[in-house]
């Protein structure tokens, strides 16, 4: 509760725009890290356990994994754009850490990441439908 787990309570219940970017940056970062670890493990199968490699690739072709990859692409875009936003503000334009500009920059970053993601999401989504539902 309030006094015992302030971080947990704050991350889930505190309401602020800056907090949204703070949390999304961490969640997308952890998601990318998780994928990277999985990817390193499955690639290592080529050397250590070749019989498992094909199995791993089959898992990648399953619908839940392919949907996960679509969100992974968004995570990469968001994490990248937000990182660039913070670098620009911190290193070149500290005066932009003013409330109105900073709040707007959070929404702009979110919009940009979605815009950049949409074409990839369309192509990847089409691949799921073609591979799994249209006998492709």
């Amino acid at each position, binding site marked *: 509760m*309030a006094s015992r787990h302030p*971080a947990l309570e704050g991350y889930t219940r505190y309401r*602020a725009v800056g907090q949204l970017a703070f949390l999304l940056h961490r969640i997308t970062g952890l998601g990318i890290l998780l994928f990277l670890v999985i990817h390193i493990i499955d690639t290592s199968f080529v050397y250590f356990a070749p019989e498992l490699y094909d199995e791993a690739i089959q898992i990648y072709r399953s619908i839940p994994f392919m949907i996960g990859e679509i969100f992974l692409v968004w995570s990469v875009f968001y994490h990248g754009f937000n990182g660039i936003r*913070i670098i620009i503000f*911190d290193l070149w334009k*500290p005066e932009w*850490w003013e*409330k109105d500009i*900073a*709040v707007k920059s959070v929404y702009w970053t979110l919009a940009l990441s979605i815009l950049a993601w949409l074409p990839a999401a369309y192509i990847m989504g089409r691949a799921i439908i073609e591979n799994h539902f249209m006998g492709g």
Partner: protein
Amino acid sequence: MKVTLKVFRYNPETDQRPRYDIFHLEADPNDRVLDLLEKVKAEHDGSLAYRRSCAHGVCGSDGMRINGRNRLACKTLVKDVGTTIVVEPMLGLPVQKDLIVDMEPFFEAYRKVMPWFINNDPPPEKERLQTPEERARFDDTTKCILCACCTTSCPVFWADGSYFGPAAIVNAHRFIFDSRDQAAAERLSILAQEEGVWRCRTSFNCTEACPREIQITKAIAEVKRAIITGRLD
């Protein structure tokens, strides 16, 4: 208008866990949340505990979480927060009772940055002069009322209370960039420590929470820059 006020209640000496009490009140849209708390205390439950002093946004006593974000109860109008209002203590400081938190860790961090004027030159006959531009350099950070709304809105502070927090840095900024002060280097070296400005992740919850509208994240960025460059321009 009818208002539902949901208030966090907790007495660490007697309660195992916190609870929320709900009060249905008649309120004017221009009433402040503090007015509602006063009404509850006077008419419904005299045991409700909260801090208040000037009740006009100057003393900084009644910082609390109102509908999920830190505000001063005396500066928050009912019409701005809706008809269901949830009032909780600020996060990251131990709850002493209901909406009252122990401010000592907050003031401990504040004292560490030496928030007082330091100039060892003999005082002039009248006063230590500075130009309007020199005064304007730190004007924004003179507005702090030490309500702790910023520090207790900081995700880094929630996770680790040893971080000095935005309020301490704001008050260091007020003296670091004062042309009459002589201890900027010392303060900057304090703020360059592990618990200092580098813990800031620029989530700018602090700037959003400040009831005095101080551009806190910007002030922290200026302190970071001063540490890196060694310049106070």
